[in-house]
């Protein structure tokens, strides 16, 4: 363990954090512009050329906003809750493979922070921690809307986590590995979405519920719950919740691309050494397409009613995901025997 290795980790972590926060800012812009286009509006276009400085303006505005801590709130937990929400969203990106191994000034540097052999389980573990920030925000606000919103979204998240976990099993069965780098390398020629169409759709729906996006944006059901778990939050603390949601959107899009759409690889193309740098851009292109899909869904579908949402998760998604795993397993075993 030499100092250069530690510096490599610090630099890579800092770059990933910059990409994720920058990505967060521009995903909000992307969403507003695309939603506007779908609704035949123009969207924000005044701050800078084509409005590209809009996220900066929003950020500056939020910094100078007054922050309130309700008098009856549990003050420590109230401040801690947004922090606990955003940290898992950032840390989950550690196992995301952005590319293969590249050569920088004679040093072999892999374009991912860590390639743990239980990568898929790591994603599940960190995703399961992110429920707490929302429960805590709801509870510590001492507000009826916040409490109900926090509880509803935590129950929703754990319900869809099952279908999500089962959707992970398909690619793991086919690749024979839980490491995300291995899973990408196994998709050099054929993307796993070809073998796992049902698994891919289950993954997309479950991740929409997991990141609380429309049509599963129950915590933000503004007509009945004002703003759900973050009703009492304002200023930068609100910004942290907002940031966590968009970073999770980017992360789940990246994982969908990695598990089902070949990750940083293009089909049938072997990267020569000097071309390994293209990996992050390939992944980025796939992320942008998937994010566009998420925004399109928001523009198209109305929100679920809560009882229907839970019934859909338990009575349709979960049995379907389980059946998908068992059928995949039988086929994998028959073909290999």
């Amino acid at each position, binding site marked *: *363990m030499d100092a250069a*290795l530690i510096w490599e*980790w*610090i630099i890579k*972590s*800092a770059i990933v*954090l910059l990409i994720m926060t920058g990505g967060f800012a521009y995903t909000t812009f992307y969403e507003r512009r695309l939603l506007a286009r779908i609704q035949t509006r123009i969207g924000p276009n005044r701050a800078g050329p084509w409005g590209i400085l809009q996220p900066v303006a929003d950020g500056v505005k939020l*910094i*100078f*906003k*007054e*922050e*309130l*801590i*309700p*008098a009856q709130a549990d003050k420590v937990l109230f401040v801690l809750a947004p*922090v606990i929400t*955003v940290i898992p969203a*950032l*840390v989950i*990106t*550690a196992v995301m493979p952005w590319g293969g191994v590249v050569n920088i000034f004679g040093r072999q540097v892999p374009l991912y*922070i860590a390639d*743990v052999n*239980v990568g898929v389980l790591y994603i599940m573990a960190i995703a399961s921690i992110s429920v707490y920030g929302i429960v805590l925000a709801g*509870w510590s*606000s*001492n*507000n*009826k*809307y916040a*409490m109900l919103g926090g*509880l509803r979204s935590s*129950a929703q998240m*754990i*319900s869809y986590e*099952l279908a999500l976990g*089962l959707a992970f*099993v398909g690619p793991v*069965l086919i690749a*024979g*590995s*839980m490491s995300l780098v291995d899973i990408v390398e196994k998709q050099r020629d054929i993307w796993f979405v070809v073998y796992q169409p049902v698994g891919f759709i289950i993954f997309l729906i479950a991740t929409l519920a997991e990141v609380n996006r429309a049509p599963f944006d129950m915590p933000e059901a503004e007509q009945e719950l*004002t703003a759900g778990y973050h009703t009492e939050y304002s*200023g*930068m*603390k609100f*910004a*942290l919740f907002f940031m966590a949601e968009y970073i999770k959107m980017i992360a789940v899009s990246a994982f969908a691309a990695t598990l089902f759409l070949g990750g940083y690889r293009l089909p049938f193309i072997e990267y020569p050494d000097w071309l390994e740098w293209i990996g992050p851009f390939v992944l980025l292109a796939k992320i942008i397409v998937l994010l566009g899909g998420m925004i399109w869904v928001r523009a198209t579908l109305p929100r679920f009613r809560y009882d229907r949402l*839970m*019934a859909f998760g*338990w009575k349709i998604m*979960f049995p379907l995901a*389980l059946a998908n*795993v*068992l059928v995949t*397993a039988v086929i994998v*075993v028959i073909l*290999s*025997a």
Partner: protein
Amino acid sequence: MIPNEYLPIAVLFILATGLAALVIILGHAFGPRRPTARKLMPYESGMTPIGPGTRRIRVAFYMIAVDFILFDIEVVFFLPWAVYARELSYYGLLVIGIFTVLLLVGFIYAWKKGALEWE
């Protein structure tokens, strides 16, 4: 010595915590603070709040959490098997099949009892 493969994740964790702390501090440093008693009241769509903000929750939430534990453990058992499914072949299928059928009995019981309903 081979460095622990989780150390880089620890580095990311520390930097991410620093980033979150920085955002909180920025808000504290630049945001104005002029609290009044009314501002600090719980928000209830403009009405004066009635009763405490936190109260006992419905038992349905508890039921969902119980069901979740059961099947979460199932998923965690699936993954190590899935990695070696080819090697374990039909025997592995049999073992995991029995395991799944037993848990499905519980799932069907919960369904029939209405523990999955939200009324």
